[in-house]
């Protein structure tokens, strides 16, 4: 940390920076490093065994696959929600806008039991179940990891849609909240320029508005994805938590802990941490890139 700052006439630099770094180190960096240090004591074979056993691989697939799907659905509907909130006036808009933040504010355990009450087999919307199972089941066939269920010899049951619903819920605010300010600052002149040049409304949306929104859309998607990867509270109630089938990775970590397999739990945690950090890094790079590219 440079001493150029010493020239500032404002006091408190040393104190505030010192405290910040110390607190950060004790609360965040030291505990996080514990996970890596613990893992470094493992042999390579033991590590691979811990992070790549069939059950763990199945959990990754569930976590990554359904998180991706939920984030994609959020990207699509989040774009519509943000567009409607910024562009169209309608009664009760302020309330709807506030509601978007609910998944941030509502404790995950509460969300978990509430979603279960609605969407579980005997819940409020239980009649939707065949539709969910059919829809998501069919979607899975189109995904690159589509045939894992058959591959593992597990029959698709109805609980993956539950995971999908919970992960969509908790990721919902990210896309909307990253898009909203960008949409608000989008100059109407861009659309007007496009219109005076003869573009149809649809061409304007596709060629002018969407490219302007793309960085924010990807950022929001990545944030929703990252959040969904780590989510635990809202999922455990609604998912069946069946090993090899509907067991998400965070749950597997807890299961290992309960079996006193600290090393196994930590190894999986390290894999998840590294993927989250990579995602975080990508998000930061993307934001930096779009800030530089878009400042005019």
């Amino acid at each position, binding site marked *: 940390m440079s001493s150029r700052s010493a020239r500032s006439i404002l006091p408190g630099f040393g104190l505030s920076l010192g405290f910040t770094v110390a607190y950060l180190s004790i609360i965040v960096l030291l505990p996080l490093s514990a996970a890596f240090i613990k893992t470094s004591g493992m042999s390579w074979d033991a590590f691979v065994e811990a992070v790549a056993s069939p059950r763990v691989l199945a959990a990754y697939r569930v976590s990554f696959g359904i998180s991706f799907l939920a984030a994609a659905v959020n990207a699509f509907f989040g774009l519509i929600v943000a567009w409607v909130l910024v562009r169209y006036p309608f009664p009760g808009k302020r309330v709807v806008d506030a509601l978007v933040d609910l998944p941030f504010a509502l404790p995950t355990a509460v969300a978990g039991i509430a979603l279960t009450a609605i969407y579980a087999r005997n819940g409020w919307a239980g009649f939707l179940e065949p539709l969910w199972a059919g829809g998501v089941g069919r979607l899975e066939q189109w995904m690159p990891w589509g045939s894992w269920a058959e591959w593992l010899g597990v029959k698709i049951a109805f609980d993956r849609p539950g995971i999908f619903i919970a992960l969509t819920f908790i990721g919902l605010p990210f896309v909307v909240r990253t898009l909203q300010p960008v949409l608000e600052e989008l*100059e109407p*002149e*861009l659309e*007007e*320029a*496009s*219109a*005076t*040049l*003869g*573009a*149809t409304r649809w*061409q304007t949306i596709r*060629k*002018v508005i969407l*490219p*302007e929104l*793309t960085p924010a859309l990807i950022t929001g998607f990545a944030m929703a994805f990252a959040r969904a990867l780590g989510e635990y509270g809202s999922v455990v109630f609604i998912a069946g938590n069946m090993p090899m089938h509907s067991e998400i990775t965070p749950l597997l970590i807890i299961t290992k802990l309960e079996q006193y397999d600290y090393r196994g739990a930590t190894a999986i945690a390290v894999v998840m941490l590294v993927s989250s950090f990579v995602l975080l890094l990508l998000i930061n790079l993307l934001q930096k890139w779009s800030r*530089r*590219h*878009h*400042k*005019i």
Partner: protein
Amino acid sequence: MSITASKIKKTFGAYTALEGVDLNVPAGKLVALLGPSGSGKTTLLRIIAGLEFADEGSGRIAFHGEDVTQVPAGQRGVGFVFQHYALFRHMTVAQNIAFGLNVRKRADRPSKDEIADRVQKLLKLVQLDNLGGRFPTQLSGGQRQRVALARALAVEPKVLLLDEPFGALDAKVRKELRRWLRHFHDEINLTTVFVTHDQEEALEIADEVVVMNNARVEQVGTPQDVYDHPASPFVYNFLGNVNRLQLPWRGLAPEGSGGPFIDARIAYVRPHELEIVPYRIGVEGEVATVLSIHAAGSVARVSTRRGANELIDIELSRARLDELALQPDDSVILRVRRSRLFTEDYAI
């Protein structure tokens, strides 16, 4: 192609932006819409472009006699240059310019080569030959302005509309670019309307100036015309400096009239239309006291006070100032060479 706008009325809620405005732009001319902010000039331009629509039932826009009032912006054949350029940031300069051609229906769209060719020609026309591959963020303000212009011209518009084209530029670039625009207009001869609040800009490059105020057109005429013969106190005030002299004023003969103006209470006189003569008994004119002398510049300016608190500025040549050898607190005689009398007062 001429532009005719008649009886254009536009209200935004309780706010009236245009109050039954008529405008006629002759084919091939460069016309300035000049006025202070809030005068309605930008709204008028946007209505001509089809970006806004006049209030229901009012007004009509015609290009070369053909009614385009209900034609959407994209099909009117206007080139519109926005104040802050509105360049598409995710496209290169060349892609920006080609945009209007690329969005055409396949049947009307020129081939890829033709488009590339046209883009090259336009880049050359706006003197940005080698910058087609750059992104807008990599250009200076003046360059962006010219890209916006080329983009608007790419669709071969019938009329060119510019909203405060130099407003976002610094003073030096602004001066260069407005000369360039005048020159450019002479070359392509496209009917052009631009909006500005800068009277110097309008007077310097426009063939015709339309002075607007309070949702109305105050005066239309050549730059010389509106400057020399302002139709209203507002125009007098808005174009250049002016002294408002309280009547009576000894020896003041109103322009174009023999007899005295009974109703007139204020005479509008430009600083260079006043004359200073040394104080002597018997010389016709009004007595004033010299307050200060500003001799820095090509023209000298003298501030004087007449009576208790009427401040009057006079512009005169440096040679004449030397001749007079004025000092602050000197008493002098002011004589009016030319003036206009108005019954109402107008203060900006």
